[in-house]
């Protein structure tokens, strides 16, 4: 298995001068489904932003698909990101695009599909994530769970090699949570080489989610968590 994400000696000091990460080393391989645990404010989202190049490390390197993202051009970085799917904690749907247009946006940029194929795929994905509302409405009024479902459909649209879920299960009730777990499992299994990374606030939030590895953020580092339950080979 090759490492799709590799973090080497990563140090990150934020704009307020606070050290968030110090000498972090980690690697995530293809086919893996890894969980990252860390309490509120521990830096989970910051780590994910660093990994996809939305933030620049103070020191150290991050490799995506074997390329050091600090040493590549902006256009190359965008091209690499087209192999990534990211479901943000707050969904972050584009507010001036209709629900269906939020899904078609990455398809326009990263696929060669024809117009009607793009819309067909978007509608299929919305159906898969269980969206039942008006696909031509703006997403602003949607409940948080529905926004996350749409964001999941958007991330799934381009069949990414790396899928990142940032605290996706918050605000879900048990049934919605189970539905989402099944979706993530199915999507992860659909492509053998796909790497999935899921973040949680607490370890008890992930007891029913099968993961191949669990890491936790501790003392500004990423270390293996003392957690065996639910681990899968």
């Amino acid at each position: 298995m090759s490492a799709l994400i590799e973090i080497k000696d990563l140090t990150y000091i934020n704009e307020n001068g606070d050290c968030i990460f110090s000498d972090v080393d980690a690697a995530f391989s293809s086919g893996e489904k890894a969980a990252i645990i860390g309490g509120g404010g521990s830096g989970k989202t910051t780590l994910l932003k660093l990994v996809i190049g939305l933030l620049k490390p103070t020191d150290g390197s991050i490799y995506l698909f074997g390329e050091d993202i600090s040493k590549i051009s902006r256009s190359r970085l965008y091209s690499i990101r087209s192999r990534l799917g990211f479901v943000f904690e707050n969904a972050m749907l584009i507010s001036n695009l209709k629900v269906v247009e939020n899904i078609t946006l990455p398809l326009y940029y990263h696929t060669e599909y024809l117009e009607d194929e793009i819309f067909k795929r978007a509608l299929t994905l919305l159906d898969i994530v269980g969206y039942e509302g008006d696909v031509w409405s703006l997403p602003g009024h949607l409940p948080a769970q529905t926004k996350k479902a749409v964001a999941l459909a958007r991330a799934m649209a381009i069949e990414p090699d790396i899928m990142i879920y940032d605290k996706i299960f918050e605000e879900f009730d048990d049934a919605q949570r189970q539905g989402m777990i099944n979706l993530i499992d199915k999507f992860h299994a659909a492509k053998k080489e796909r790497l999935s990374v899921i973040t949680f606030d607490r370890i008890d939030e992930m007891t029913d989610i099968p993961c191949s590895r669990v890491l936790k953020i501790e003392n500004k580092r990423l270390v293996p968590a003392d957690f065996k339950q639910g681990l899968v080979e």
Partner: protein
Amino acid sequence: MLRYIGEKFLTSLRDLNGIISSAVYSISSFLFSSKHGRRAASRVLYKQVYFTGIEALPIISWIAILLGIIIVTEAMSILPQIGGERFIGKIMVWVVIRELGPLFAAIIVIARSGTAMAAELGSMKINNEVMAIEAMGIDPQVYLVVPRVIGASLAIFILTFYFEVISVLGGYLLAGFGTRMSFHVYASSILEAINITDIIASLLKSLFFGLIIGAVCCYHGLKVGRSITEIPQETTKAVITSLFLIFVVDGMVTMIFFFI
């Protein structure tokens, strides 16, 4: 004090650099970019042309008619006293077509669309939507800025032409009905006065103004950081900077055409 002035000067230079980069990038990206994403960006461009151009037609029409009436009223109050009625055409060409047409169209667009562009992008930035676009592997410059800059330029180009036609015709409302000047005399006077340089100067100005307004408003919109209070601040800066730059460029183009 000296440090404060220096910092302000450097900030202005950085802003100017950002604005020029946005405008240049927009033109090159529009002309030479790959077809990837063109369909999505085209939708933004059409929306921008519709919002900036089509939806502005009623207010542009009213202002153009009123401006035409005002200029002809002023001109006809003095021209007959010096026997210069035939100069009405020259006045309309110099004042409306070469100067006020492009300027008024640009000012209306700044007030209507420039503020909307800056506020919309600022709010997208605050809500991390711009970051989401980046995370999807889409360059925000290509998806958000280029279609807005090009859309605003096309819209102002068309609006300026429309403004000038309506203003000249609106002027005739008074010239014709108030002073009994026949349409034939009025039209002949204008056709005699106008030449291709006047039209080129006017439309060239409108293209520059569109690029300036689009680039300045997008630049300030995306400059919003984390606080929602920055949105009105950057919107105000976008308006002031756009107004300043269009007057500077207007003066420069006028001078260039004066010496040609």
